[in-house]
């Protein structure tokens, strides 16, 4: 089982993902954005950062990297793809996930630990019990998710909403609990099949307890178990 972590120019969380997966005892290696061969990887991670400086729009340029064509193919074959923060933004720009990202409502960059409710979903990357509340840091300037009404309805109907911003007790504040203004408090979504997953929070930051917690561990362990079962 090997994670492949893509480095785009301007990515800056790639070594964090490598460090977190190694901490959990998993194999993981970098993939250069110019590469066109990603065979030999069982799961692909698009890490956080500011690919191409976030210029024009977040993820707008990275989406055209040679490696992305391969990632699309990999996902179509059912391969698991995880997009964290900028990785999530790239997935929406690449139309591998619906919707788009706007500037945070307050127009400020936000770095802080937030409460997230794990929803009942088709996502292959999490099997944390639906309804449980976890703490993971967010760290972004453009995490304000939007999509049209039909898309939102579909996301909810198909169990594609994986994570929502909530209050400490799991409830939703009147007017919403998203610190960034995100539509319907959405923090993470997956495709219908559940193999492509994008989230704004940074699970890799809370894997090794010395950096503040362990709530991020399931986001890497679950997929490993799943793939192991499939392999039988």
């Amino acid at each position, binding site marked *: 089982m090997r994670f492949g972590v893509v480095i785009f120019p301007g990515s800056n969380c790639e070594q*964090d993902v490598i460090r977190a997966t190694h901490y959990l005892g998993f194999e993981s290696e970098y993939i250069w954005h110019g590469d066109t061969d990603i065979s030999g990887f069982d799961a692909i991670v698009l890490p956080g950062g500011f690919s191409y400086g976030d210029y024009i729009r977040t993820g707008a340029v990275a989406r055209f990297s040679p490696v992305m064509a391969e990632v699309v193919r990999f996902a179509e074959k059912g391969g698991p793809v995880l997009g964290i923060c900028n990785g999530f933004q790239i997935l929406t720009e690449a139309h591998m996930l619906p919707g788009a990202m706007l500037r945070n409502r307050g127009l400020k960059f936000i770095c802080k630990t937030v409460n997230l409710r794990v929803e009942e979903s088709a996502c292959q990357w999490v099997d944390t019990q639906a309804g449980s509340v976890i703490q993971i840091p967010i760290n972004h300037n453009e995490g304000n998710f939007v999509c049209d009404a039909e898309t939102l309805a579909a996301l909810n109907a198909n169990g594609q909403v994986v994570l929502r911003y909530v209050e400490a007790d799991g409830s939703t504040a009147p007017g919403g609990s998203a610190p960034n203004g995100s539509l319907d408090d959405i923090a993470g979504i997956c495709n219908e099949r559940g193999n492509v997953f994008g989230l704004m929070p940074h699970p890799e930051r809370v894997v090794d307890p010395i950096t503040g917690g362990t709530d991020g561990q399931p986001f890497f362990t679950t997929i490993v178990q799943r793939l192991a079962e499939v392999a039988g």
Partner: protein
Amino acid sequence: MITIEPLAEDLAPKLAVELGLKPDEYEKVVEILGRRPTITELYMYSLMWSEHCSYKHSRKALRMFPTSGPHVLQGPGENAGVIGVGDGWAVAFKMESHNHPSAIEPYQGAATGVGGIIRDIFTMGARPIASLNSLRFGTLDKPRQRYLFEGAVAGIGGYGNCLGVPTVGGEVYFEEAYEGNCLINAMSLGVMREDEIIRAVAAGPGNLVLLIGSTTGRDGIGGASVLASQEFDERAEDKRPAVQVGDPFEEKLLIEACLELLGQELLVGLGDLGAAGLTSSASEMASRGGVGLDIDVLKIPAREDEMKAFEFMVSESQERMLAVVEPGNLEAAQAICTKWGLRSTVIGTVTDTERFVVREGDEIVADMPASTLAHDAPIYDPAMTRPAYLDEVQAFDPLTLALPTEPADLGATLLRLLASPNICSRRWIWEQYDHQVILNTVVLPGSDAAVLRIGDEGRGIAVSSDCNGRYCYLDPYVGAQIALAEASRNVACAGGTPAAITDCLNFGNPEKPEVFWTFYESIRGLADACKEWGIPVISGNVSFYNESFGSPIYPTPTVGLVGVMDDVTKHATASFKDAGDVVFLIGESLEELGGSEYLKVAHGMVAGRPPALDLGLEGDVQGSVREAIGAGIIKSAHDCSEGGIAVSLAESCIAGRIGADVHLHDGLHPTASLFGETQSRIVATVADTDAEQFVTILLEHDVPYGVIGTVGGDSLKICERLDVSVEKLAGAFEPTLERLVAGEFASEELREG
């Protein structure tokens, strides 16, 4: 061979003065060249001999600093200092000011300040792992000040976040004295293996000079001399073109490419282009290597048309690096730059002439002994006189004021102090900074010092930046020592052992005897304390001419201290933990209200003598707490600084969301007891089962201490003097900054003042 074209006899001296050279400095240039300078030469000398680049007023005083010690691998003189932190790991760090550009355009000024200090770090071969920022503004009731504050914070975050270098700490004060001249001091740290240290040296005649990174435009022309070396006043308007726009994406690519080039040993030397641009980095690299350089400006990728030779040489376009490469390695080196999407251009060669020759095609536009630019600037012995205001302010005795004694008044005063912009929570700032990326941050902002792990074998460092300008205004010698004392006390509270410091010395016009006296006294105080505690100064920066409309800022010698930790898991934070924990006060309280936040908030005064500092006691107090943290028995440690012990206790309650019940048997006036800012005090808690062991440690270190109470309940009770719920304390402490800037973001004289 085309003969060089000096400036006309009548024009040269005039232009020299316009560019900031003093008449005798101009004469020295003529003497060195043996002729009148060309326009390019004149620009190059005027910038290299400006205060900002030559330290001509401060150099002598700086010699007072101790610069060597067991940890020091590289002292002052390079782009950054370097210390060893164990297991072969080395940490490079430095602090630098970007005050004047930020006062014109806060976002870009602060952003490019961060960019500049980070280039200094990876130029040494270190990977940048953290930044801190030390900020000073006027009071936030002024729209212009809110604009500067919001812009600077956004710029620091905007640049550092994009690079993926966490901003893990800093400090900020709001004082009238900084209203016309904000301070933006940025500190950066990088990590490498001890054997990977690189020095910015050009060597090997025949080697190639490679310019890497962004194109060169007219932006920031004359930035160094014009902005940083003249008094900053209403004329600032005309200097607007000197503002530069930063490109953090380009800088991120530079970090990766340069570290890869160094890792593969493809470079002979590497230097960054900062103040005075190509002139500065090229001449410094040449003089360090005792070689000459031959550069053709027409080879430099230009951002604009018809740029003059001198514009290429002094442009401060950001995100550029200068490398020296052996011809045989050129192809490999450029391949790496291309891989990272970076421009790289050979613009000249290293020669054995020791002369710096600049060509524009086949015309020679400058030809001077390379070392004279970096090393022959005149060195001054500025006159000094003790400022007249000192006797007056120091004579004031705060105890002559009507001071509150009633619990209700004392409680209200505590809440006012907690809500004061100089004490309140800085959360609003650090939540705009990525303070976690690279996964080394063990103690996040909000405690005393930031703690970072180094490598995966459990080593770490603790970092803090501090300076109370008010103390330095009331007594520069003691004030500067307190800056160091507080930085190392913060580090001690986290469990670190001070290893070395960097500094950023922000002062007014050094040509004013009273200003220079405060500068000299600050350095003398800092140097004496450094020697007493064995803490060397390994890098730093001097920023003079921080004045506007004629009055200097408070003397502000900011200290950035790095402490080492052999076991990073053995650290402490400021928050109270569990009910029943025993509260200790280490150190003793004196009747000291001079220069306190209480005096400012309650009486609108900045007067009196700053708290006294006993260097021996301070060292012992820190040592005892450090040892107890190492022994693993400390559950919380927080020092007493602005606002005194009452604020310190309140901050620990708020951070832990739990109360405490304490008694102070100090026999002082209640106000002095609660809010006096006596130094060398730390509030620490331990589980009651560990109290005995802690006492043993305190006795061994022979420090005064008191067992003052226990953690628990939902309010802070201090004797019969005050009783306030943690809820209320937090309500005063937390929202202040957000409130002061919220919605006000756009307001009348936004950019005017």
